[in-house]
């Protein structure tokens, strides 16, 4: 199924409590070599037709304005997958 994949991460300088909790758990299970964990989001937009360049452009706008909040998150990638 054709889809557009939007990947969003919390901003680098922001505390990511989810990632920190997972990192602590990994450290407890012996993986102290993992220095940090950060957790983001992957959002898939599915289409029943071929994805056009315009779809991708619009998805980038949606990603910046609605799917993410630029105060706390960065859009890492908006990609097309056939």
């Amino acid at each position: 199924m054709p889809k557009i994949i939007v990947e969003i991460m919390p901003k680098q300088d922001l505390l990511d409590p989810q990632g920190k909790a997972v990192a602590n758990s990994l450290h407890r299970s012996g993986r102290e070599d993992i220095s940090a964990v950060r957790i983001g989001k992957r959002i898939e937009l599915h289409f029943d037709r071929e994805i056009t360049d315009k779809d991708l452009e619009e998805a980038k706008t949606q990603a910046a304005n609605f799917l993410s909040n630029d105060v706390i998150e960065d859009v890492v990638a908006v990609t097309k997958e056939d």
Partner: protein
Amino acid sequence: MKIGVITYPGTLDDRDAQRAIRLAGGTPVPLWHADDDLKKVDAVVLPGGFSYGDYLRCGAIAAQAPATKEVIRLAGQGLPVLGICNGFQILVESHLLPGGLIRNEKQHFVCKDQKLRVENNETAWTNMFEKDEEILIPLKNGEGGYIASDETLKMLEAENLITFRYLDGNPNGSLNDIAGLTNKRGNVVGLMPHPEHAVEPGFGPDTKTAMRSGIDGLKFFQSVLQQVVNA
């Protein structure tokens, strides 16, 4: 004096907000998220809860609702708007107030009576308070950590837009102890704690005088009634 209260799917405190408006002497008007008709109200409250299940981000989907779009438009013309808790999150997601709200620093949901200092008593919703007045109202949130860029924080401090600060300890890691904000015009106010839960003796926070006698929240609603009369 008609004050609208918007109900979104997942809103919790709309009835409490309506009751607070009634106790302050106003007429509450229930508004529906999917309806862009705000019924000519004189002010609007965005109440607390978990609109749209807090999906995507708290307040993000509610910020796109037809009723919210109309609130954004009318706020630009000076309509008084109060966002409480999830309502505050909706206001920042709507860009009516700057910054963002993230999970509490210590991960836990916090539910307690919270002391605040009124930093700005020149807004539509705080004009009945004294400057630097200390008030006590309930706080209950999981994602109440206020953040903003250094530049935004400097602007908020310089322009006196921080309306409330947490006292006696910061419950959620909010930068600069910010509990609530206003816009430059002073018609939009958002805060994490819940004034509508401290409006009637017998049902508010405990005070030194008597159990559950705290009614510091009432002045929010009296302020806006005062403001609308003077406008």
